[in-house]
């Protein structure tokens, strides 16, 4: 009997031990991470610093996890190029978008390079690199509804958006606060594919999102973009306020990238224009 109890304790200790080892080995594993399918490293040489880059894993063409579980996309390739040029290693970490800024503040990741719009609210808590891209918001609807941009602006229908995105904020500021729609007509989701699914299911009448990933999300579905909102949003890389050197490095790297022929190749590869 005593021996059995001893064995039981041993098993419990071993289990905890294994758990603890697991914890120490994965410092980048955060509570906000949806899934941690992806970590890719570039040319691991010892003297270079390694930065963890937080991305939205469902934001094509900027950043997404491909079928093989690897991070891919315009931004992912950009940051790898910058890292190569500026002499550091990167580790790509896919996370929940609505928790990505706290993860940055908490030091779980070192930058967000994933089509993040520079906004005043975000600038209060993090620093941004120089803008590297400009996008507008686009509005989509189901082909069967025949709704137009005028209907959208008049608030004739429920609007779906991803929580924590500039599209959701735009609707809130302009339609909800302008009393054009009631607050419960703005429906927010965890990620955009869910918004597109519900638009297809006709639970919502409109979806709002940045144009390039919207195009990707509605491809092959009976959904189409009915118009754009000229928000002229600028994408930048978010970096902790306490990390000015990294900010400088990234600014320099992005400037080099945009001046190089690779920039146009990337734009072509991901059909950005």
């Amino acid at each position, binding site marked *: 009997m005593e021996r059995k109890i001893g064995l039981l304790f041993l098993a419990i200790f071993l289990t905890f031990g294994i758990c603890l080892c697991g914890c120490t080995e994965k410092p980048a594993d955060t509570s906000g991470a949806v899934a941690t399918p992806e970590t890719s490293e570039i040319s691991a040489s010892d003297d270079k610093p390694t930065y963890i880059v937080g991305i939205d894993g469902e934001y094509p063409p900027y950043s997404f996890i491909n079928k093989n579980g690897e991070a891919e996309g315009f931004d992912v390739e950009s940051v790898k190029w910058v890292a190569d040029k500026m002499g550091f290693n990167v580790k790509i970490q896919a996370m929940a978008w609505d928790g990505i800024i706290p993860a940055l503040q908490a030091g779980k990741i070192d930058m967000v390079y994933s089509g993040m719009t520079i906004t005043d609210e975000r600038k209060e808590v993090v620093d941004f690199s120089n803008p590297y891209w400009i996008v507008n918001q686009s509005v989509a609807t189901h082909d069967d509804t025949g709704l137009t941009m005028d209907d959208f602006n008049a608030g004739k229908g429920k609007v779906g958006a991803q929580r924590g995105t500039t599209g959701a904020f735009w609707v*809130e500021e302009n339609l909800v606060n302008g009393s054009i729609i009631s607050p419960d007509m703005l429906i927010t989701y965890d990620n955009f594919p869910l918004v597109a699914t519900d638009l297809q299911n*006709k639970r919502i009448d409109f979806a709002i999102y940045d144009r390039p990933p919207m195009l990707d999300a509605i491809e092959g579905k009976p959904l189409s973009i009915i118009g754009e909102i000229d928000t002229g949003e600028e994408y930048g890389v978010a970096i902790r306020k306490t990390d000015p050197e990294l900010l400088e490095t990234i600014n320099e790297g992005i400037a080099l990238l945009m001046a190089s022929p690779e920039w146009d190749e990337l734009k072509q590869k991901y059909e950005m224009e």
Partner: protein
Amino acid sequence: MDQVTFVLDVMIPAFQNGLLMTLALVAITAPFGLLIGIGVACGRVYGGKGVSWLMKMYAVFFRGCPLLLLLFILYFGLPSFGIVLSPFVASVLGFIFCNSAYNSEYIRGSMISVKEGQLIAAKALGMTRNQAILNIVLPQALRRSIPGVSNEFIYLIKYSSLAYMITVIELTGASKLIATKYFAYNETFFAVAIVYLALVTITTFGANALEKKYAIPG
């Protein structure tokens, strides 16, 4: 925005609406979860071979299926079969399936604990089998399952927080919305944790009172 205005003007109104939604989800789910749980447990313990097997499969499936997955199937999956549920109905259905499956196990356990001899004695007194189950076994079994069922009720309060994933803005959803909007993650989630703790504490006291009131004398 300073902390006081944030709490008074943003957090409290958002939490009020969220709390009402959470309470509605729990209040509608709990009675059905209990009734179906009793039915499934009866079927498993006293049903024929076929019924017993069916009820077992019910428990196996809904205990085995992660709740979030179940909610996604009900909400995003069913429309491809032409069934479009509202977010609220889909969440309540998912919660009822899950809650009743767990409840059925607690109640089954306490049903088995009632000795077979009591059923035979009841029959000897002229009761039919159903009368005996209803009047002799169930009253004892239900009392004995109060700790387990109230435990499940506490789980229900907490898994109602998954409803925000299918766009029901309950307590967790409301807190996520204001957290992302104002970047006040720590304050918001800390506050919402206290609200959940309060709900669970009230439930615990209620369950203790119930247990005392319906304790089997002797």
